[in-house]
């Protein structure tokens, strides 16, 4: 633990030290620094966040860790980009069957930077799916799914499925010919699952035909239900990564310390 200046010495809690007169050489800089430090100290004294941050950030990593290990973070940043751009797209989007297309046209053609932000969201979704598969391939080929990390693999697979569900529900939202027919086909594919399929497609459409509330339903799933679950799952995924540590690449040989080595003569 870092020493907390406000609790050191014999001063009662909450009183301020009056001794730190800034040196005349760089008074401005020192004052800024002091404000920053004391703010962080104030927060840390009440939350102990720095311990958690240190636990998360300063982990031991194995020899041989390389650029392939950044694919998970890359996927997470793709998700963050989708979340941020999505929130702002929602400010202009209207999830009604008669007005959705027009609202997308407006936000693409008229809104300042609208085309750019929508483009990031549209292409970013593809980038996220590609990254998640690359991350999965890295985990598979490096054997990083093995004991004790099986549960993290399972969470990762759930995240993959949720990401694909995001792609499916998001595809309908521009509400042009392509989205409408792709969703018609996609819902029919869901319906081909035996026994539950017909009920699942009724659930997705909110009825036996593509109806008045289908679009709103897809919108709610896309922007409220799934992002919440994905964020929670990413939290669990990261917690397990920090707790269990990462694996060395398979080409790095384990080296045991000499005193632990058994004589195998």
């Amino acid at each position, binding site marked *: 633990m870092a020493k907390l200046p406000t609790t050191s010495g014999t001063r009662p809690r909450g009183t301020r030290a009056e001794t730190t007169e800034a040196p005349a050489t760089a008074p401005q800089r020192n004052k800024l620094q002091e404000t920053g430090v004391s703010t962080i100290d104030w927060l840390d004294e009440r939350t102990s966040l720095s311990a958690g941050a240190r636990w998360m950030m300063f982990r031991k990593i194995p020899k041989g860790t390389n650029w392939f290990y950044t694919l998970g973070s890359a996927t997470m940043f793709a998700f963050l980009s989708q979340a941020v751009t999505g929130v702002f797209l929602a400010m202009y989007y209207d999830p009604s069957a008669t007005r959705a297309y027009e609202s997308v046209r407006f936000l693409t053609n008229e809104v300042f930077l609208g085309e750019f932000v929508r483009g990031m969201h549209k292409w970013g979704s593809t980038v996220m799916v590609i990254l998640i598969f690359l991350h999965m391939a890295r985990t598979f080929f490096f054997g990083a799914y093995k004991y004790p990390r099986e549960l993290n693999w399972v969470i990762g697979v759930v995240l993959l499925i949720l990401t694909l569900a995001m792609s499916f529900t998001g595809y309908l939202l521009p509400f042009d010919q392509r989205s409408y027919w792709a969703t018609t086909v996609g819902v029919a594919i869901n319906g081909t699952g035996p026994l539950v399929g*017909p009920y699942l497609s009724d659930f997705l459409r909110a009825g036996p035909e593509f109806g008045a509330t289908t679009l709103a339903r897809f919108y709610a799933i896309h922007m409220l239900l799934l992002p919440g679950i994905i964020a929670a799952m990413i939290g669990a995924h990261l917690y397990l990564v920090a707790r269990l540590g990462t694996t060395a690449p398979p080409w790095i040989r384990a080296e045991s310390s000499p005193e632990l080595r058994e004589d195998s003569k």
Partner: protein
Amino acid sequence: MPVPDDRKQQPKTTADAKIPGAYEGETVTRRRFMTASAHTAGGIATAAFTLPALGMAFGPVFEKEQVRWEAVGPTEDFPDDTYIPRTITLSPGIGEVGKSTVYVRRYNDTIDSEVKDEYNDYVAITSRCMHLGCPVRYVEASERFICPCHGGVYDREGKVSGGPPVRPLDRFYTRVRDGIVEVGPRYSLNSELRRFSPRDPGQAIDGVGQYLYPSRPSIRKLPGT
């Protein structure tokens, strides 16, 4: 010989267990009772908002759709040897999105093998492909329905003649009122053109298919057909 039960006898009351502050005849400690009550209260509170919300999301699965009949034109518009495309509204209130094309013609004894009854004086065939729901088009020259997506082909009765579709094109009930042909609810057919409650595209009805893809409460064929 019965095996003697040498498990430790559980004390029946808190007094037997010598728990401090026990009342006479008390079988559950107050701490345990309070814990259980708090958990029950929490469970009830969670269920009170979760169950209605889920009910709202799943309600449409069990809600029966209204039977609607829609006029598509006077009887003399429809010949018995080719189809006339007409637009009907499947889902009212959402503009163009709720509309769909049906192909209509008069029942023809020499072509049709569907059993004749009061609902098929006019044959109305959906434009929804039974592979995955793309829109099919009737091509007059080849007397075939053709799907642009994955190459599904149907003969002029709507029976599958090639490609991935799993059953003949769905049809709509029709009736004639005051010389006007009206199109009603949709129904599905197996490969012998026997009627079934409407299924989604991609769901086979022949053989075991009718049980693997059960009919849904939201949409049924008309009773007695």
